[in-house]
């Protein structure tokens, strides 16, 4: 069992794609527990950073109500120009409603939405880790991989390493590009597959692409099903 104080070193070495942290987890007596704990730790850290950063963001902007009142006349004017409505009171009510929803969702008005998303962060990361591990392991086994699922759960947990950059969002207006996080995570997952399953780079690349391809296919399927249900509902 690894000590949690060794996690920063593991994460740092995984970020630069060194083999050592992957080998450490492959040879660990309980890789999946290590993986789960590592992912949860990063999730809690990230959630805390998002919460504090979000509160600082709200505190550094003008009050939500004042911004809404400043925007209202322009919205009414714009709505009249593009024939969205002539009644200013109706437009004002709709705008206030939309503002309440939007500002509440991004946590501009208060901390409850931010607290909710902060608590959700570790759960979300654990789900991503499970999906990535299972999809990649399945593909790697199909391609002749020799590693076990337990080992794969351990090594794939290192793909959470780039998420550590999210701690910087504690400073208002710092944004970490999702593309950077996604591609970096896939590069780490590629090293995980290559080392755990002892595959060639071609096979490891194919295996690691299984997760995003599966995700895209699932999105298409859900979008198509939703659209079909809506069309049938509309027809009825």
């Amino acid at each position, binding site marked *: 069992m690894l000590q949690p104080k060794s996690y920063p070193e593991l994460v740092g070495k995984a970020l*630069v794609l*060194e083999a050592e942290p992957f080998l450490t987890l492959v040879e660990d007596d309980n890789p999946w527990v290590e993986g789960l704990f590592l992912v949860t730790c990063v999730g809690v850290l990230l959630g805390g950073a998002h919460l504090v950063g979000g509160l600082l963001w709200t*505190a550094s902007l003008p009050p939500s109500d004042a911004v809404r009142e400043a925007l209202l006349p*322009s919205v009414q004017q714009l709505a009249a120009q593009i024939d969205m409505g002539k009644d200013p009171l109706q437009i004002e009510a709709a705008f206030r409603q939309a503002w309440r929803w939007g500002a509440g969702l991004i946590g501009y008005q208060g901390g409850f939405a931010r607290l909710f998303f902060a608590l959700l962060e570790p759960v979300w990361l654990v789900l991503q880790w499970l999906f990535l591990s299972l999809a990649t392991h399945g593909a790697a086994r199909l391609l002749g991989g020799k590693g076990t699922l337990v080992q794969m759960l351990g090594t794939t947990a290192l793909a959470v390493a780039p998420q550590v950059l999210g701690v910087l969002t504690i*400073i208002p*207006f*710092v944004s970490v590009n999702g593309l*950077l996080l996604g591609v970096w995570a896939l590069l780490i997952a590629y090293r995980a597959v290559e080392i755990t399953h002892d595959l060639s780079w071609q096979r490891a690349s194919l295996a690691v692409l299984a997760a995003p391809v599966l995700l895209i296919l699932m999105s298409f399927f859900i979008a198509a099903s939703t659209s079909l249900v809506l069309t049938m509902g509309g027809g009825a």
Partner: protein
Amino acid sequence: MNSSSFLRADGTLAPQRTAWWSAWLPTLSQVQQAIQLQFRTDANMPHSVWAITMRQGLGLVVVAALLAGFLPFLVNAVTAVRLGTTVPLAQLAQQAQEQSADGGPLSQMGEIWQRLAGMPPALLPGWMAGLLTSLGAWINWPLRWLTWWLVYGTAVLVAAKVWGTPATLQRFFALTSYAAVPMVLTGLEPVPYLGVLAQIVAVSWMSVVYGASVSAVTQLNWRRTVVAVILPAAIASMLGIIFLLATATTVLRMIF
């Protein structure tokens, strides 16, 4: 005995002196060789451009981006602290001001931005909101550069792999990190006239260093290197155009 000697006066061997940052950054001599395109030196020399790890490459990209972002950080901090607001609002208000200074009337949005920039922050003192958000804008520099280095680099390596290059991920990222150095010149952006010139020089120089480093690490000839470097941008542009056309067609169909 000079500083590079490891033999003590009594004949015993002294431990090698290494600075704490040497694991995170290449030496100045390595960087100088790389930006002068000297990639064909002996790979076994301890201070050749090849003796760089991905960790040092990562450090180089981050430090170069922080250096480039320093002057814009100072300009942003002074502007935002003086206005007592966040950097994005200060920039929008300043843009609106510049538009009206050109002789045109202040647009409706311009008026809104100026009004918002004039409002005090909800809780923090204005100067602190300005300083914090300037710091945030500065930190975004290395994050943006890391995105280019890793995401675009991965696409270039995939393109190069089509021709069977033996380059590994770590080696590729380590060598291509040198291309971040000329981009430090983009930090001169706030300087009138010189800023534009510096950006043109920076991008041209970076492209040449990037091409040379890709060619060296992938062992491809120049023609294939150019194709590998340009292909990801070409595919991304093509996909972007297709997406835009599809969106425009859908919107037009909805309207008419």
